[in-house]
């Protein structure tokens, strides 16, 4: 299995027509199959929007995003869904289904790959193999004992790891994670991101992770992309992101655009 490749050309997401702002402004970026990239930048710089474009959750209002050579803007709703089923997405706010169990939330990762009846079965009467796989993934994330808990009774850090487990259960060709350690304590977050990087490397999965912790990004990723005010301001190796370059990225005044 090879990782997914992404190609953005002038990708823009502009909500001004609907009373919003311009979230992304002419992004040119290519990410090769199996590449591991961290996205950094101040809040409001467009990290989440960028990840949503890569995950085919949104299409750009202008410019192009292609995922494995397929332009999302022209793609049918069905092809977008097929793309999404190959992309594991870890949402910043976890996006778990409250009132369902951890096991159901993790197994839901494959809903997009399963048709009607087998999807229904996997949610209501999950196969032993599914449960074992879900448990195995949760174990590696340190919450194997929570398998049958309701997710609305979990702590923020636990919920975040369930969200990661769901994306891993999906066995995606690319893993896209939006601030996957925002609710995890600092001691744990390095471990968790390192595990994502390791898993991606083992399987040849492409990995794009947005992080607010620049040190974490520099320590674990060979390539870092910096966003500021919806524009691509930095794209290079961790060594290049230092001194003035780093200060420029996080400079306080004018950090976000309207």
């Amino acid at each position, binding site marked *: 299995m090879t990782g997914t490749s992404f190609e953005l050309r002038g990708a823009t997401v502009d909500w001004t027509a609907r009373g919003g702002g311009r979230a992304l402004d002419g992004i040119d970026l290519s990410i090769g199959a199996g590449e591991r990239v961290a996205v950094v930048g101040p809040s409001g710089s467009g990290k989440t929007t960028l990840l949503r474009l890569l995950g085919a959750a949104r*299409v750009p209002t202008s410019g192009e995003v292609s995922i494995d050579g397929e332009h999302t803007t022209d793609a049918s709703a069905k092809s977008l869904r097929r793309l999404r089923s190959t992309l594991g997405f870890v949402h910043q706010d*976890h996006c778990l289904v409250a009132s369902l169990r951890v096991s159901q939330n993790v197994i839901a990762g494959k*809903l997009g790959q399963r048709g009607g009846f087998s999807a229904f079965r996997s949610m209501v009467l999950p196969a032993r193999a599914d449960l074992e796989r879900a448990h195995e993934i949760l174990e590696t994330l340190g919450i194997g004992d929570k398998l049958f808990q309701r997710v609305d009774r979990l702590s923020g850090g636990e919920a975040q790891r369930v969200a990661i487990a769901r994306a891993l259960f999906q066995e995606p060709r690319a893993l896209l994670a939006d601030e996957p350690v925002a609710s995890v304590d600092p001691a744990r977050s390095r471990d968790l991101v390192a595990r994502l990087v390791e898993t991606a490397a083992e399987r040849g999965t492409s990995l794009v992770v947005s992080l607010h912790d620049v040190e974490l990004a520099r320590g674990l990723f060979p390539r870092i992309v910096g966003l500021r005010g919806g524009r691509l301001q930095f794209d290079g190796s961790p060594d290049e992101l230092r001194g003035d370059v780093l200060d420029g990225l996080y400079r306080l005044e004018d950090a976000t655009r309207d």
Partner: protein
Amino acid sequence: MTRGRAPSPVGRRGIVVLGIAAIGAWAWARLGLDLDGLVPTEGGARIARRFFGAALSPAFDYEADVVGAAPPYLATIAEALGRTAIYAAAALALAFVPGVVLGVLASASFWGGDPATVDRRGLGRVVPRAVRATTRVLIALSRSIHELLWAVVLLAAMGASSATGVLALALPLVGTLAKVFSELLDEAKDAGERGVRGTGVSPFGAFLWGRIPVALPDMAAYTFYRFECAFRSSAVLGFFGFPTIGYFLRASFEENHYREVWACLYGLLFVVVVLERWGAGLRRRFVT
């Protein structure tokens, strides 16, 4: 964005509250209500004293001699209460599935579609709007006629069979369940649905696995509350000749057997309190 004029201290909310109070005062004046009407006449006061006096000594047996081998009085009451509950349960069973279907069709979230492609659909925008509007009209029709009015109408048309009573209870229940279900579905947090959609499922799948489970505990709790309401309505159906507790209540009342009336009322109260406690327990378990 609002700019310019500073908000006035009275504001729109104050005007609305004053308006509501004014309407209430007008209605009161229009009906010529005064509290003198509540003071009973000499004879009325005697009846009232006898009626409320009987509250302390509800009947445990028939107040008058009964002809033939009638079952013990308390058994009759218990059976009538049981039958009242059975009418309510049958009505709820009949109304639940149509209530869910109409509730889903009437909710905006069911027709939301995929946010990535929602701008593209042309005709796909018209059909959902038409179905949703039709459903909402059906729901309003079902709700606009009270179950007791349905009972009167259906009695005239079909006679006093059990089916008539159950149908009378079920018809408005469909609309009530559907209306509240659609609101609960729309108010459910959409995070789960977004998460499930990210795995590549269809909008229907995302609704089914990402939204319905989130609304389900509240839907279950509301359904149970509606059972309680159906039980009370079912009791009143007895006044129209259905063999629920209301039938015995009315018969005792007409014969001035006030102690029997109180036995029926205490029985009703007991069941409602039990249902209420039970429902509260379920809510605690379902809704965290």
